[in-house]
């Protein structure tokens, strides 16, 4: 078994016990990149030299007998919409092709304080818009379990790299399911924290009131450790929560006795893949066996959540993306005058999906339509949040599918954006409500594709969903399986 197959907490112990060095580990992961990146294409930028330099520094520290932090010396990678000082941050868009931020996102500052090894920047749907990573302006990423399939999106690179062993951990961002859905498609753990739990400063905005950075990891233990590092109030983000940050690793206990788990009937949608439903029902049975109490609940406004989301997110995106006009940063396409320069820049450098959402967003915000669309969507948003609030009067967590299917084929849905949007039906509502949710593996389809389930928690109660997820994870071995790639398994 090679080093890249192990989760971070195992590797951390090995580093502490001097069984391995960070350079050995980093080289193993870099050689894994050499072996399979051609098939997976999870990365946009690999910072190979910097990674080895960081690894060497950690080894020297260990040699000096100094203590190391959890993530120290362990290689991971970052979704390319999180600003990294001195390293290209493109959002998988041509408009930011050569953009090198002069500053670090707050999560990067927090990570760097831990001295991890940063391998580079990960592919995504352009500006995080999409559910398949096919909308990257550079190349699609492939699902490590079947490279003819999508890895999910928009954090497809984040999920695929961890699943392929080309990163031990990664960071993604989740606006309507963009961490949880690819985690589900790639058989890894992905957590969307409560809105405001993690600073958004330095995350290139898609839908500002919905976006949240979160970890993508091999297992729940790593997820809790990563959340410890990135969570907390940030003065640079006034929407970040001032609530105290608990030690999330204390939630890593195998105990769901008496835990009330809600099953929302609206999340078991028509058209759901029977194999997905079967795997989730089996997980529910497992929870019952372990002493949890299953409660049928209803979240009646779920049907409207998708429509509301596809008005609010594009409306925010339309304004957020206005800054890319060829004037201040990013790419410029010249024109005869100012207006044509801006028009040419935006026409040529934005992809189709991005343009589609800009148009939708501007339409929804325009005078005369604001009340009918944006304002109504905001009212639906309130109703969705109230649904959850009522449900959490009865239950501790909510269990649901992540996506109605396993990973679909590349190109299969590309021509049908509406069908693609429906993929988000089970993930979007909690972004509207700002709630935390975790996706973790709960089985495989007959074709060998991973199936994920989602555990949704109360605001700021990541501890309970981590506890529920960890208990289930320890009862099976899905999280230990690696995708077969590059003939090395």
């Amino acid at each position: 078994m090679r080093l890249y197959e192990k989760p971070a907490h195992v590797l951390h112990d090995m580093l502490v016990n001097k069984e391995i060095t960070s350079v050995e580990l980093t080289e193993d992961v870099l050689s894994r990149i050499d072996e399979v990146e051609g098939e997976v294409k999870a990365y946009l930028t690999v910072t190979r030299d910097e990674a080895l330099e960081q690894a060497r520094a950690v080894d020297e520290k260990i040699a000096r007998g100094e203590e190391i932090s959890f993530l120290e010396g362990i290689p991971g990678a970052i979704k390319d919409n999180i600003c990294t000082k001195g390293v290209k941050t493109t959002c998988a868009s041509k408009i930011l092709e050569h953009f090198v931020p002069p500053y670090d996102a707050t999560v990067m500052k927090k990570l760097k304080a831990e001295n991890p090894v940063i391998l580079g920047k990960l592919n995504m749907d352009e500006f995080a818009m999409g559910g398949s990573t096919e909308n990257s302006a550079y190349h699609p990423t492939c699902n490590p379990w079947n490279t003819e399939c999508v890895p999910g999106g928009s954090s497809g690179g984040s999920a695929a790299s961890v699943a392929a062993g080309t990163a031990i951990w990664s960071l993604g961002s989740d606006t309507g399911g963009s961490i949880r859905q690819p985690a589900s498609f790639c058989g890894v753990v992905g957590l969307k924290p409560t809105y405001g739990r993690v600073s958004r400063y330095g995350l290139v905005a898609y839908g500002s009131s919905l976006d949240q950075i979160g970890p993508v990891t091999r297992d729940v233990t790593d997820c809790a450790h990563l959340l410890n590092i990135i969570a907390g109030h940030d003065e640079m983000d006034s929407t970040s929560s001032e609530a105290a940050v608990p030690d999330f690793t204390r939630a890593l206990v195998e105990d769901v006795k008496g835990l009330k788990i809600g099953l929302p009937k609206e999340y078991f949608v028509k058209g759901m893949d029977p194999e997905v439903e079967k795997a989730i029902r089996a997980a529910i049975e497992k929870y019952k066996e372990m002493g949890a109490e299953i409660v049928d609940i209803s979240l009646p406004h779920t049907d409207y959540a998708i429509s509301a989301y596809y008005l609010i997110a594009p409306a925010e995106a339309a304004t957020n993306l206005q800054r890319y006009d060829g004037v201040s940063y990013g790419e410029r396409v010249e024109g005869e005058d100012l207006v044509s320069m801006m028009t040419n820049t935006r026409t040529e450098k934005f992809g189709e999906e991005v343009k589609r959402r800009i148009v939708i967003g501007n339409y929804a915000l325009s005078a005369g339509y604001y009340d009918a669309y944006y304002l109504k969507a905001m009212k639906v948003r309130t109703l969705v949040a109230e649904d959850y609030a009522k449900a959490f009067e009865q239950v501790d967590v909510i269990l649901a599918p992540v996506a109605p299917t396993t990973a679909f084929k590349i190109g299969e849905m590309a021509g049908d954006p509406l069908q693609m949007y429906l993929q988000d039906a089970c993930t979007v509502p909690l972004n509207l409500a700002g709630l935390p949710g975790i996706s973790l593996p709960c089985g495989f389809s007959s074709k060998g594709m991973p199936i994920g389930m989602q555990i949704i928690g109360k605001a700021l109660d990541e501890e309970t969903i981590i506890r529920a997820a960890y208990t289930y994870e320890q009862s099976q071995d899905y999280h230990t399986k690696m995708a077969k790639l590059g003939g090395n398994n």
Partner: protein
Amino acid sequence: MKYEAVIGLEIHCELKTKTKIFCGCATSFGADQNTHVCPVCLGMPGVLPTVNQRVVEFGIKAGLATNCEINKYSKFDRKNYYYPDLPKNWQTSQYDLPIAEHGWVDIDVEGEKKRIRLTRIHMEEDAGKLVHSGTNIKDSASSNVDYNRTGVPLLEIVSEPDMSSAEEARAYMEKIKAIMEYIDVSNCRMEEGNLRADINVSLRPVGSKELGTRTEMKNINSFKNLEDAINYEIERQTEVLEDGGHIVQETRTFDPAQGITLSMRSKENAHDYRYMPEPDLPPIITSEETIEKYRSELPELPDARRARLESEFGLSDYDAGIITSSRAMAEYFDAVVATGADAKLAANWMMGDLLKNLNDEGLDISKSPVEAQRLGEMIQLIMKDTISGKIAKKVFKEMWTNTDSPEKIVKDKGLVQITDTKAIEGIVDVVIAKNQKAVDDYKGGNKKAIGALVGQVMKASKGKANPQMVNQLLAQKLDG
């Protein structure tokens, strides 16, 4: 048909915070291009704004000082305004829930008081500045953008269309300027653009309640331009209407050199700002306690101060109005009176020689070579009869270029008033002896003839004799 003008002002007031509204960059004026910038005010991908609490404080204080209601739940919005000197291409401003609403200020034009209503006061960020290689954007091969101003905090103070003449508009803007100075939220330096107005002007037949089509003139930054632009626009619109034409709704610029307004762009109605609540900033919740705290920190405002100067010192309404028209003037007056100088004399000297000299040299009172302390000392010399009012004019003139104390100037220049009866008597005797005709006239019943004699005595004493004593002694001698 007779027309009346309907005028409304949107005043942009730059706040004197040390740092910008949403980041920690300095707001100071005149720095090298793009030196006061950071990722936040450059609108870089991924940045988030954080609100400078001083701006909120200033917004609330401005609202309280103009009799507005303070919104306890206020929020920022994105105003999508596509222009190359706004780095994000939206302006973070306030839309439906501004910090303050529904206020008023009173103005005074030639003794007539009028109440001008304020629609709202909202907080927003300023934009940057385009620097063209040519004289304007059209004839420039390239243009650069200076983002130093980007994110400098502004209050936009919007009036109802309650004014009907250029004089009223000027009085209104002067009142707003005075209030902002008094509460110390802005430097109000109009030449630096601290205070600038967008003016809306429309005409309607006298007696009509309906508003006519309006035109807007942007960025007027002097009182003279404000008056000239409005007067020109009223005249222009009157002519158009009298010729049977229609006013086009448009934005016009004022050219101070020619004294005319020119069409800049029309189709204003096509503007769709697509306002949206700013998702990156939580709403501004203001408690009653905070409002009361800020209210308690407000100084005495111009109107209250004016009333006090009238009742406490017996100043005329006119004098009190001018003295309280700016914070600097009012403070100067206070400082003069604080030395022990008589308030009426202080007012007279300020309204007279001081203002005249300042105006002649184009100086602001804060730069006056005669400081309040010294004017106070000089007035005390008058009160003690050390100098006469007439000599004081000489002393004052001397003080304008000489930094010595008035007492020293009086001594050095030998300007001390002669109050010695013997000395004055001597001069009086000589004058009586030399002016037999005037003496005869007086004795013959022409009492006015004494004036010529007083003049002679004063002349002979080089103005230093105490005029009252001269009058007294002359009368004694001639009548006796």
